[in-house]
């Protein structure tokens, strides 16, 4: 038994933030019914991207341009614990399945709207994707090197955070419902999630009037040195062949251990590196020395040498490293092939939920489903419809 078995979620989300949220809940056993339509190409249900974020869900096809399809959606919403979408504001209302309509008879239902900017406010209609949010929320500006211009994040970080926050919000509302007996509406602004991610810097600005600036691999507020990524022996000339090692010394013990692993070179006993404070003041020079030491060494061997000596160190891993040579992920079976081949994509893969429940393990990973693949099962389970009735709906173009 997985921990969320018995929770029913009607899922109208698309792209990443919403689907990631419902994937988390599906991985933990919730019955997530993903509503899609042949007329909504945005979700492209046979693409690799879709397949990754929609595992463990059931697929229902509904042509929401039809009134009879909307009636099916209303019936489903009446059976749901959670209805979630990340459309522009008001779409579910226009379909007749908004919170006010449904909660009048299903007062337990929880509605989550995961829009870019939230409901209300001068920017509420603005269109955003994760890179937009990164820029607006200060993450793009702050992730970079001093005087180097904004670099920002190399992936859609905030979509994952918004998805995680969506999951937290839903489970929080379910806990509140246990006390109050009622569901409620949740308005989750992906922009506000992003702004919370730089909360410490915002507080520093309000309290001290200080502006945060990019600081490379150093910490914005604390003084540790060394604290950086150092280049090791490359495997070839391509940027993907570069090997880097992150090394951090947070206290005198870790620094002394690093010196010991480096075989106590003369420079590390220099007065300018004698204290934590002086090492921070001379961090650029310190980095030069460490780079010279790591430069022709094997990153993996060096990582083990340093970790064995008690110095935090880790190789910078690419996606290839994570899949092919990360012994920790392999030991945990972090990446596994789905049990059943995907009808279009063939063999597909899952990176497992990084939550290990002692008594309710989440070890079921089912491939994403193609459009309408679970029409019969979902409508039988949720609405008690017969297979014949479902097939009729498919023939009539309602369930497509």
């Amino acid at each position, binding site marked *: 038994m997985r921990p969320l078995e018995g929770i029913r979620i009607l899922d109208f989300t698309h792209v990443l933030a919403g689907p990631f949220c419902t994937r988390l809940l599906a991985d933990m056993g919730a019955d997530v019914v993903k509503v899609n339509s042949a007329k909504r190409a945005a979700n492209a249900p046979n693409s*690799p991207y879709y397949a990754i974020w929609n595992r463990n869900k059931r697929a229902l096809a509904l042509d929401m341009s039809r009134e009879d399809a909307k009636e099916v959606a209303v019936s489903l919403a009446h059976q749901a614990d959670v209805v979630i979408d990340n459309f522009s504001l008001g779409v579910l209302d226009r379909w007749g399945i908004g919170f006010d309509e449904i909660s009048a008879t299903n007062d337990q239902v929880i509605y989550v709207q995961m829009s870019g900017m939230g409901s209300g406010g001068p920017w509420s209609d*603005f269109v955003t994707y994760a890179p937009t949010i990164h820029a607006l929320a200060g993450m793009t500006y702050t992730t970079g090197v001093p005087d180097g211009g904004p670099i920002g994040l190399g992936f859609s970080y905030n979509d*994952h955070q918004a998805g995680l926050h969506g999951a937290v919000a839903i489970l929080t509302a379910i806990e509140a419902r246990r006390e109050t007996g009622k569901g409620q509406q949740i308005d989750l602004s992906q922009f506000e999630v992003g702004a919370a991610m730089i909360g410490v810097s915002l507080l520093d600005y309000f309290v001290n009037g200080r502006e*945060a600036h990019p600081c490379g691999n150093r910490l914005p507020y604390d003084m540790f040195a060394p604290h*950086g990524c150092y280049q090791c022996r490359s495997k070839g000339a391509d940027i993907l062949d570069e090997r880097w090692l992150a090394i951090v010394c947070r206290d005198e013990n870790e620094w002394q251990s690093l010196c010991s692993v480096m075989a106590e070179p003369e420079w590390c006993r220099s007065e300018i590196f004698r204290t934590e404070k002086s090492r921070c003041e001379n961090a650029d020079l310190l980095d030069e020395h460490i780079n010279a030491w790591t430069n022709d060494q094997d990153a993996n061997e060096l990582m083990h040498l340093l970790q064995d000596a008690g110095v935090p160190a880790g190789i910078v891993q690419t996606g*290839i490293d994570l899949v092919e040579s990360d012994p920790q992920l392999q030991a945990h079976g972090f990446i596994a092939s789905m049990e059943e081949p995907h009808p279009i994509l063939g063999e597909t893969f899952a*990176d497992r939920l990084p939550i290990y429940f002692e008594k309710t393990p989440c070890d079921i990973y089912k491939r994403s489903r193609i459009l309408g693949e679970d029409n019969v099962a979902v409508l039988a389970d949720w609405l008690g419809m017969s297979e014949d009735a479902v097939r009729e709906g498919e023939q009539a173009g309602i369930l497509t």
Partner: protein
Amino acid sequence: MPTRGEALQQTRVVDLSDDKSIYGVKLLADMGADVIRPEPEAGDLLRHRGPFDEESGESLWYSFFASSRRHFTVDEASSASLYELNALLGCADLCFLGNENTLAERVNVEAAQTRNPKLVVIDVTPFGSSGPWRDFKAPDLVASALGGSSGITGDDYTPPLKLFGELNFTISGAYAATAALAGLYHAHQTGEGQRIEVPVHECIASSLEHVFMWYYYHEHFPNARAQALERRGSLHWTNLYVVMPTKNGAMMVTPTPNIEAQLAWLIEEDAFQDLLDSKFEEPENRRHYFERMMDVIREWVATEDTEELFYKAQERHAPYGWVQTVSQVASNPQLEARSWWQTAKVADRKVPGPGIPFHFKDTPGRIADSEWLEMDANSVLDAVGWEK
């Protein structure tokens, strides 16, 4: 502290987290959970994390991450004090453990779960309790490197970069909160608590968007030259989102989701150059068309005022993003209009502070002042007000 009409007001939490999961506890605390964060006599190590209030010296890092808690001191040399600490677990719903919180080693989880079978314990560590790296040390930068986020952050002229501030450990924190609430739901349904492990390494690896897709399905993408993408600044894996310099700042620019509308805009601005050339209608040139379009947009954007361009784009439903500094975020009209800011107490001052990232219609959360528990009561449990 509880009974504020908030979503988690009935949830009792013992917070022995460290920096890897303290954000997750904050999410629960700000939604009304009654969170007790015990501290060793020497003080919580996380109170030494900067930045600090220049007037009082108080840690702003701690003010943000340890919001809405109650605190008391544990004398680790006193068996009576440790007994009291362990007694708390007998009445708690959730207990967060962090491997760098010294008090986490002083609680007997197994004994607590025997006394309190519904207790859910969330143990957040760098790598989990098994595997060859289980004893590795992994502060943020190392976790970021091993977990894969540094490998795709930075540019070809920089080293791989860690994400700014606490962006890695807020991921593991949010996972920890998710785990806790799922465990709590199960405990309410069945009466069965449990221990839950959350390895930070896997949290980071599971939140890298395209990375595993690129490895397994790179043949689906015409611009893939290997099973991994190199670090390449802000350029998204689709090649269609990137930060460009403007006349007076920077803008995250994308022609998606409506490429034709972007072209129409460039035509209106008389900035379309050769994008209407018939050569781009040939299927084999389609990819070059997108590359060319990004180049054309870059030249045009470089002549535009950032703020004007941003609002013009959004009027056209183009998801451009104005690259904002922290002070600009602090004065953002959308956050202001949605009353996102809340009051934070720093030393004796009340200042604006970041709010809660979700709005509950009926049971809203709030950032509450932290409290220091008066310990003249007979026991910690009496002081806390939790029933035995």
